[in-house]
C-alpha cells in the first residue's frame, strides 16, 4: 500500500436530535478539531439534495471524503436518521481509490440500519468504534479489509488502484509478453485466448496471429487487449522488420544517466548464452539508428557490436522505453492532373504500414508501385 492513499482518520458523524451535527466516533480520537468540523459540517451532514453523493471537501490542510445518508421514517426523532461515515486524509493525497470504499461503507451501514436498526440502537452503534479501528489499520496496512459485523453480515473492502484505459490495439501491432507466458496455466483461460497464446512470439502481429490461429480478428483484438494487458503483462508494439527505420529520441541519454535502465537494457538485449553486452556497444548501436538507416544497414555497419546483442530485442527495448522511435513513410500524391481521381490512401494520412495492411500488398510491392509514380512524394516522420 503506497503512501498515496494513506487514511489519517475515520469518523462517524450524525445529526443528533438536540445537539445537531456532531462527530460521534473518530479514530484516532481528537483528530478532527472542533474548528475543522464547524467549517465542513455542511458537507458532512447535508441537505437532502446531496444525499448519497460522494463529497470530498478540502479544508485546513485535510481532505474529508464522505457519503451522507438520510433514512426517513416516523420512528426516528425528527422523522429522519442522518449520518455519514467518512475518511480523512492529507490534502495532498490522491483519494480516487478511496471513493468506492466510502460508497460501499455507506451502503453497508444503510443496509444494516434498515435490517436491524444497527445505528439507531445505542448498544449496537458502539460496535462501530472497534470496526472503524480495524478498518483504519487494515486498509492502511494491506489495502484490504474483511470484517464480520454480526452473524449475517460481513464487510469486504479492497482498495483498487485506478487503471489507465486499455490502449487501442491496431491490426499491425505485435503483442509482446513482458513476463514469461509459461508462468500462467493455460487451462485457466478461455478458448480464444488459449488458441492464440502459442502464436504470440513477440514478432507476429495481430492480423497474422488471427489468420494463423484461425480466430476472427475482433475476438483476437479483444482477447489481446483485456486479458493479456491486465492479467499477464503484455505490451503491443508496432511490427518489426529489417527494413524499418528508427531514430534516437532525447531519452536515449537515460541509458547513460540511469543505472537501473542500463541494467535492465543490458540484460534484455544480450544474446542468449553470451557474455553480457557492454554499455558502449549498446549505446553505439542505438546511436547508429538514424533517419535513412534501416535495421539491416545497422546490422552490416555494426556487426562487431552485434556479436553479443540481439538486434530484435535491442529495438524492442528501445521502443518500450522510448529511447528510439520509428520513422514511417507516408506517401502523398501531389495532385497534378485535375481529371484523375483524388487519392484515397496516398494523402499523407496513412503510413506504409497501414496501406500494406489494408491492401494486402507487401512493403516491397508498395515501394515498387510508388517509385514509378512521378506524382507521388514520400515523407518520413
Amino acid at each position: 500500500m503506497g503512501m498515496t492513499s494513506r487514511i489519517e482518520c475515520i469518523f462517524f458523524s450524525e445529526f443528533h436530535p438536540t445537539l445537531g451535527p456532531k462527530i460521534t466516533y473518530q479514530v484516532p480520537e481528537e483528530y478532527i478539531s472542533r474548528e475543522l468540523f464547524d467549517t465542513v459540517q455542511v458537507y458532512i451532514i447535508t441537505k437532502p439534495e446531496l444525499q448519497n453523493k460522494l463529497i470530498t471537501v478540502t479544508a485546513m490542510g485535510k481532505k474529508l471524503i464522505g457519503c451522507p445518508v438520510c433514512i426517513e421514517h416516523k420512528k426516528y426523532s425528527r422523522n429522519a436518521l442522518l449520518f455519514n461515515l467518512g475518511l480523512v486524509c492529507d490534502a495532498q493525497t490522491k483519494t480516487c481509490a478511496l471513493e468506492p470504499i466510502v460508497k460501499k461503507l455507506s451502503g453497508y451501514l444503510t443496509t444494516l440500519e434498515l435490517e436491524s436498526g444497527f445505528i439507531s440502537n445505542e448498544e449496537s452503534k458502539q460496535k462501530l468504534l472497534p470496526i472503524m479501528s480495524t478498518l483504519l489499520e487494515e486498509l492502511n496496512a494491506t489495502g484490504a479489509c474483511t470484517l464480520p459485523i454480526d452473524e449475517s453480515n460481513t464487510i469486504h473492502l479492497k482498495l483498487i488502484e485506478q487503471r489507465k484505459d486499455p490502449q487501442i490495439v491496431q491490426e499491425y501491432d505485435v503483442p509482446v509478453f513482458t513476463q514469461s507466458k509459461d508462468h500462467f496455466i493455460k487451462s485457466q483461460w478461455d478458448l480464444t485466448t488459449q488458441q492464440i497464446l502459442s502464436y504470440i512470439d513477440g514478432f507476429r502481429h495481430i492480423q497474422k496471429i488471427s489468420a494463423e490461429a484461425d480466430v476472427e480478428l475482433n475476438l483476437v483484438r479483444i482477447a489481446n487487449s483485456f486479458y493479456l494487458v491486465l492479467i499477464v503483462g503484455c505490451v503491443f508494439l508496432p511490427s518489426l522488420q529489417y527494413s524499418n527505420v528508427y531514430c534516437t529520441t532525447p531519452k536515449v541519454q537515460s541509458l547513460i544517466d540511469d543505472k537501473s535502465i542500463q541494467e535492465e537494457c543490458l540484460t534484455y538485449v544480450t544474446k542468449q548464452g553470451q557474455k553480457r553486452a557492454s554499455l558502449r556497444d549498446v549505446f553505439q548501436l542505438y546511436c547508429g539508428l538514424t533517419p535513412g538507416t534501416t535495421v539491416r544497414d545497422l546490422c552490416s555497419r555494426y556487426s562487431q557490436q552485434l556479436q553479443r546483442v540481439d538486434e530484435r530485442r535491442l529495438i524492442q527495448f528501445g521502443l518500450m522505453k522510448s529511447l528510439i522511435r520509428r520513422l514511417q513513410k507516408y506517401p502523398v500524391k501531389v495532385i497534378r492532373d485535375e481529371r484523375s481521381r483524388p487519392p484515397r490512401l496516398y494523402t499523407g494520412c496513412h503510413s506504409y504500414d497501414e496501406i500494406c495492411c489494408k491492401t494486402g500488398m507487401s512493403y516491397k510491392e508498395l515501394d515498387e508501385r510508388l517509385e514509378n509514380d512521378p506524382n507521388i512524394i514520400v515523407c518520413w516522420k
Partner: protein
Amino acid sequence: MMFNPELAEDRKPMYRHSQSTLYKNGDNTRPISVILVSSGSRGNKLLFRYPFQRVAECTSSLAAKQRSPYALNTAGDVLEDQDGDSREQTPLTDEQLVAGFSDIILATILATKSDMCGKKFELKIDNVRFVGHPTLLQHPHIIQVSKTDPSPKREMPTMILFSVVFALRANADPSVISCMHNLSRRIAIALQHEERRCQYLTREAKLMLAVQDEITTMTETDGSPQSPFRQILPKCKLARDLKEAYDSLCTTGVVRLHINNWLEVSFCLPHKIHRTGGNHIPPEALERSLKAIRPYHALLLLDSEKALLSQLPLDCSPAMVRLIKTCSAVKNLQQLAQDADLALLQIFQIAAHLVYWGKAIIIYPLCENNVYMLSPHANICLYSPLAEQFAQQFPGHDLPSMLAKFSLPVSLAEFRNPLEAPVQEAQLIQMVVWMLQHRLLIQLHTYVCLLVPPSEDEPGLRDEDPPLAARVGGRSLSTPSALSFGSPTSSDDMTLTSPSMDNSSAELLPGGDSPLNKRMTETLLASLSEHERQVILNIPAAQSPEDLRMFARLLHYFRGHHHLEEIMYNENMRRSQLKTLFDKFRSVLVVTNHEDPIISIFQSPME
C-alpha cells in the same frame, strides 16, 4: 527477461489516432459552469450562474426524468440503481452534471464559512469539482453605527463574503484546476478592490437579487418558468463579465475582463493555448523549458509583428513593443538585447511572458548549419488546412512537397544553390520560419557522450564504472539563471538573476606546453577512472598537448546533455574545431543527433 509491466505501459502506440484523447482533453480543460455566490446578512445567496439551466426541462419533464435511472434528480429523492451499483453507467453531459444542482443547494455549499476565505476552495461531489477562492469583503463589525443617531437602525443588507466558483469535471487535470483557482482569485481581487472603492459588488448583487425576486413572483403568478439569470444579463455588467470569462475559457483560453469598466483582469489557460498534435503542453513542462532559455536561443513570434502589436493593451510596456519590433528568427536573445537596447534580463522576462501567452516560441536562431527534420506530429495531410494556408502564403509551392524535403535531416546549407537568385533563398528562409511557427519541423543537434571501451581482462561480472555523468557533478551548465517563475498569472513577479557568464571553463590559456597547462590538464582528467585515463592517453591524438588540453577542458560537456552549439557558445569555439576534435577522439566518444528536449516541447510535446 522479466519486465516491469508498469514501465512498459508508458509507451504510447506510435500512430494511434489520438481522437479519443483530444476529446477527453477538450472536455477536461473547459469549465462546466461559472457561479457567483455570496454570504451576508441575507444569508447565502446564489447571485448568478452560467450557463443557464434549461428550466423548462427541470420542472415539467421531471416525471419523465425520473424514469431514467441515470438522470440526476432535482427533487431530492434518492434514486437507486437496481443492484445498488452506484457507478455512472453513461457519461452525463456537462450541462446535466451541474444542472442537477439547484440554486439553493449551490448557495449553501459554495458560500463557505468565513474561515475558509482567502484560500483555495475545492469541493468534489460525485463527478463535479468546484473550485474557487472565497473572499472576505469586510469584517462583520466594521459597519459604523452612529451612536448619536436616534432613528432606528436601518436594516442595510451587507455582504460578508463572496466567491466566484468554477465547476469542472472531476477528473480535470490538477494543473487545470490550479489555473481555474487562479482566475477565480484574480477576479476576486478585482471585485474586492472595486467594492472597497465604490461598493460595486454590493450594487451588482442587489440588481441580481432584485431580478431573481421579480422572476420568482412572476413565475408564481403566471406559472411559466423562466430563467432569472437570462434576465440578469442585460442589466448587470458583472454577469456579462462572468459569462465572457466562461465563454473565453471554453474557446480561446484567453480571458480579458474589465471589471466595472475599470480594472483589467487578464488570464490565459495554457492548456488551451499550447496545444500540438491534439495534446496540450503541461504547464510544468512549459516552465521547465522557459527556465532553460539561454542567451544563444532566439524568440520566434507566432503572429506577424503588426497583428501582435495590435493585440497589446494600451498601457503595455514600451520595452515589449521594442522587443517585438526588433526580434527576428535569425537573431539570438543576446543580439536582441543589444539591438533593442534592453538588458538581457528584461529580454528574458518579456520573452518568457510572450511564450507563456502563446505568442512566441523559443528556437535556436536560424543559420545555414541548422539541421531540421519533420516533426513526428506534423500534419502532412494533403487536405489539411495548413496545406491550404501554405499555398496561399507561398503561391506556386505546395506544403507536402516542401515537407518531403525535410523527411531526412537536412541542413539549410544543402538548399543553397549558387545558380538561384538570392530571392529564392530568402523565400526558403520564410518557408522554414512558417513551418517552425506551425510546429512542422524539429531541429536536430549533435550530442556527445564519453564512453570508453571496457577493458578486456576483467573477470566475469565486472562492476562497471559509473558513467561520467554520475561522476562529473557539481558544475551546473544547463541553466543560466535562477528563473523563479511561477505562472505569470500569479501575483509573484518573475525574478530572474542575470544569466551567469561564468559557464565557460578555464580561460584560454596561452598555448604551449607550460607546466601550468600540464597540471590543468591533469586535474581535469582526474575525474576519470584509471582505465579511462589510460585509454584516452593512448589515443594518437592525445600525444598533441594542445588537443589533449582541449579535450580535457571540454570533458564535462561529454555527458550527452550539451549540444554542439552550446559548447560553441560557451567556449567561444568554431564548429570546425569541435568537429575535428570529436573526430580525433572518436574511439572514446559516441555521437548522436536528436532534438533539444528543452525547447522541443513546442514542436513535439508528447513525452
